[in-house]
């Protein structure tokens, strides 16, 4: 964009953290910290993510510091990979701080099947997954909900699928917030959002969304891996999607509404996309209720896809093939949480919650190890399973990175390598790719992203999360 990128005074605190002091710009209220080693810091500074993070540091009620994770890149309003906490009493909530894909997130399923068993049937499995999980252009899914059914999903999330026998109690136990945010207010979701979402439950969407069959390539922490049911050489399934058109419309509706609130109140922001409202105001509460309802839709969406994945495994392998939910975690969300004795609205935009063993919201099964943290890499590269740490509560409001993070624009990625070349490269490594055109493949090629191994090294060394296992792709269903 034509807006000039600024540079700011900064100091490296240690090998993983750079700080921009509160004095760097006159309107900053708190300091900004970027988790990045020297290489990632150079990459992050190439775009406007740092400008965007500094803008966030100017918002009312912000707690110190605002944070960028090592996968950070330029977004709109907040940077992607950004974490910012605002006091519930005198702070704000911002739709742009959550993003358009509300509760975009990741779910990991453990199959218990060795890769040696899965690989010979991989073609059939990927065909069945592609047939049963609509992807790409937003074709209606398997679940076309009537208004009452959609209301139940918005109010109860994954829990609404128990009655349809598409979810189990165990699934809910291993989903962030039990897959159901109690603060959801279906009445705050517009008719337009409902119209966009009513036939999209169980669909992937497009962009960087996917279902990947992966192999556990290596285990770094035997105890944690065992608690999660992960064994080296076994196949797992990673699902990455969000709230689809319903969530996009909720964000659109409330950015517009809050833009008007800003004008009425005479509040001037450094970026209009940071439009926000006091958390306690009627507008802030209404957005929070709508956002939680959209997040419930996203939890239910990943649950519906889980149901389809289980069916595909049963059809391909054995009628008793089961897949257990290891964990499901959001990376676009605002949550009301208590940190350092204060009630805060923690915005994680392209960032993952990473609570340690001591946190009461960590599920009983993981109390000895910490909450699982799922970090998908770019298509064709590794993904990681980590666990949250108690240290992260002090360092990052219990937050961690969410992926590799883009390093190259979609146009530049298409110019660098054609989709056909990307496909051939993946197939040469034995990876079956389905559901994507050459354009999408080119845009999501590994070279368009940062090095996920380096990103994970930073969060591990900074004690935001701890490495448990490295996963490599076997089959990719692209959105």
């Amino acid at each position, binding site marked *: *964009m*034509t*807006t000039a990128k600024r540079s700011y005074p900064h100091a490296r605190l240690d090998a993983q953290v750079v700080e921009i002091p509160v004095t760097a710009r006159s309107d900053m209220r708190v300091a900004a910290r970027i988790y990045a080693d020297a290489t990632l810091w150079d990459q992050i500074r*190439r*775009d406007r993510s740092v400008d965007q993070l500094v803008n966030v540091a100017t918002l009312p009620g912000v707690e110190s510091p605002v944070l960028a994770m090592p996968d950070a*890149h*330029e*977004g*709109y*309003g907040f940077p*992607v990979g950004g974490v910012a906490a605002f006091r519930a009493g005198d702070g704000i909530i911002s739709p*742009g701080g959550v*993003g*358009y*894909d509300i509760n975009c997130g990741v779910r990991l399923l453990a199959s218990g099947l060795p890769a040696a068993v899965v690989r010979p049937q991989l073609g059939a499995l990927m065909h069945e997954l592609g047939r049963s999980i609509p992807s*790409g*252009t*937003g*074709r*209606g899914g398997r679940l076309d909900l009537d208004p009452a059914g959609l209301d139940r999903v918005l109010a109860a999330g994954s829990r609404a699928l128990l009655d349809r026998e598409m979810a189990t109690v165990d699934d809910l136990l291993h989903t962030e917030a039990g897959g159901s945010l109690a603060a959801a207010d279906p009445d705050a979701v517009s008719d*337009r959002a409902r*119209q*966009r979402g009513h036939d999209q439950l169980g669909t992937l*969407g*497009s*962009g960087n969304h996917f279902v990947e069959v992966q192999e556990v390539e290596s285990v770094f922490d035997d105890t944690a891996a065992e608690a999660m049911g992960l064994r080296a050489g076994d196949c797992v399934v990673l699902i990455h999607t969000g709230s*689809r*058109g319903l969530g*996009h*419309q909720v*964000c*659109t509706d409330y*950015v*517009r509404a809050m*833009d*008007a609130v800003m*004008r009425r109140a005479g509040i001037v922001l450094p*970026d*209009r*996309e940071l*439009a926000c409202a006091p958390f306690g105001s009627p507008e802030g509460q209404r957005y929070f209720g709508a956002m939680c309802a959209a997040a419930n839709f996203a939890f239910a969406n990943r649950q519906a896809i889980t149901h389809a994945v289980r069916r595909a495994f049963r059809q391909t392998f054995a009628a008793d093939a089961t897949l257990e939910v290891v964990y499901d975690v959001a990376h676009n969300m605002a949550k009301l949480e208590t940190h350092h004795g204060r009630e805060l609205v923690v915005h994680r935009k392209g960032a993952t919650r990473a609570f340690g063993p001591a946190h009461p919201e960590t599920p009983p099964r993981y109390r000895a190890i910490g909450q699982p943290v799922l970090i998908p890499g770019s298509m064709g590269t590794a993904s990681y399973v980590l666990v949250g740490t108690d240290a992260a509560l002090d360092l990052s409001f219990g937050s961690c990175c969410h992926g590799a993070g*883009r*390093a*190259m*624009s*979609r*146009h*530049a990625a298409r110019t660098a390598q054609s989709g056909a070349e990307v496909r051939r490269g993946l197939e040469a490594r034995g990876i079956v790719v389905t559901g994507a055109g050459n354009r999408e493949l080119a845009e999501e090629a590994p070279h368009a992203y940062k090095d996920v191994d380096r990103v994970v090294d930073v969060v591990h060394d900074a004690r935001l999360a701890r490495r448990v296992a490295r996963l490599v792709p076997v089959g990719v269903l692209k*959105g």
Partner: protein
Amino acid sequence: MSSRHEFIPHVAEVAWRLTADTVPELYAEACVALGQMLVAEAGDDGPAGERVLTLAAADAEALLVDLLNELIYLAEAARWAPRSARAEQWDAGNLTMRLTGVRLRCAPSRIKSATHHALHLTTTDAGAVAEVILDV
């Protein structure tokens, strides 16, 4: 200056620079540009009639975002994308567009929304220029 749009660099999203002789013509160009992206993604099944959109917003920039978001909604909910557009009435806070469009083969999902981020709409003696980012 004739109306045109170009893609400008953004690491993750789609960013446009739109230029036209006048602000109403710039709105029309934005409609056509978005229609082209939607048809490229979803394909089209031929003409699908005319629509008239009437919008009100705080200023000319917000009108541009609202217009694009209206079309994104129509594409997903009604499988309709614009092929040509003309502004029938415009002032700083109000806009009436008459559009002809096509029926999309399926509902597109690539573009989530038009954003207010780094949004600019300026007018000079040479014409109107806007930059807008679409979340994809």
